[in-house]
């Protein structure tokens, strides 16, 4: 009788341990889903960083000669840029490689480090000079860095990320196109 009791007790403990293991395993999966684990590809298991886009509108970019323009709805923000920057934007947009330009190098480095460009944005104008930002994400790290609008545009056409323009800047410096 005593021996039987002991054998039942061992089985109970084994089942209990297995049950706890299963619960822990499930909990681990749930937790890992809430706080993703890096798998080598940015954005695959990590939540994508969502910048505050209040007061911003997504813009379409266009390059014509040395004139770079951003259009949101019926307003267009245009700026003159240097010839080499214009060439880089046009080459990037066409997927045309000549020799690795600085923006091609930026793309290669960002891509191969497993990072992504979340977005580019034009957010302010100081003394009539427009300022841009590039927001990058790598795992759960975000880099929000100052940029010239032309560099932001040249990188964005290569990375395929969206571009936003502050409504305040667009209303102050943009012209009506429709």
């Amino acid at each position: 009788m005593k021996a039987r009791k002991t054998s039942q007790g061992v089985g109970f403990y084994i089942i209990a341990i297995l049950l706890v293991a299963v619960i822990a395993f499930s909990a681990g999966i749930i937790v890992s889903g809430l706080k993703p684990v890096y798998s080598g590809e940015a954005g695959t298991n990590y939540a994508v960083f969502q910048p505050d886009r209040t007061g911003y509108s997504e813009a379409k970019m266009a390059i014509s000669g040395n004139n770079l323009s951003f259009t949101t709805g019926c307003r267009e923000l245009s700026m003159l840029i240097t010839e080499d920057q214009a060439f880089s934007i046009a080459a990037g947009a066409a997927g045309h490689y000549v020799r690795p330009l600085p923006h091609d190098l930026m793309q290669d480095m960002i891509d191969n480090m497993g990072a992504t460009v979340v977005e580019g944005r034009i957010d302010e104008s100081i003394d009539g000079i427009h300022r841009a930002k590039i927001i990058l994400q790598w795992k759960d790290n975000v880099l929000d860095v100052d940029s010239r609008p032309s560099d932001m545009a040249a990188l964005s056409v290569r990375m395929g990320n969206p571009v936003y323009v502050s409504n305040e800047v667009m209303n102050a410096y943009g012209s009506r196109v429709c």
Partner: protein
Amino acid sequence: MKKKEGKAVYYMLVVGLVLGILIGINLPQSIQVVQNTKTYIENSSSAELPIAGVDNEGNGVIGTVVVEVKKGTGTVSFDVGESLKGLSAQASALNAVNAAESYLNIDSSDYDINFVVKANASLIDGPSAGAAMAIGTILAFQNKSAAEGVAITGSIEDNGQITPVGSVMEKALAAKNAGITTFLVPEGESINADIQRAKECNKVNGFRVCRIRYTTEDVNIGESLGINVVEVSSIMEALPYFE
């Protein structure tokens, strides 16, 4: 009828007079070639001025330019001793001669003008000594020597306009260290745009968000270095400081 015509002629004269005065007032000082300060030298004359430049590492250096003017056949030469000379420096020597001719209202084709540049640099190049060369040429033609303790940096146009150059802060520092008390700079360049890079990181919604910002701070060169920095836009404005 005649009365009406008379009135019209009168009004036209008044309008013409007002327009003439307005245009005259608004003409840039440098192209009002009414100086008529013709001072032809007998045989030869020279003037020496400090010049400011930067070395290969971007540090400011002070050298000298001696402008020698003598009777001759209208040649302009640019002598830099053992150093190498760049094209833009030679071009600015020609601009300096044209600006001096324009200011003095003379034809220098009966004179040879030689610029002798002495600076502790392996390559003498760039347009920033142009204004100094033009002033040196004028002073040499006027048989005057340059006032001590004054230096100028600036590119020169044929019409006497002084236009912007780079590294003014570094040049001003070198000028101060060389004992210069008044440093003339092109218009708008007495303020140096000092750009600072700053990085700041915070936790936002579980992300480590870092922001890199480049901010511009205007620095008054004269105040920060303790030297009298004066903006000049033309030879006419700059010359009184050297006389």
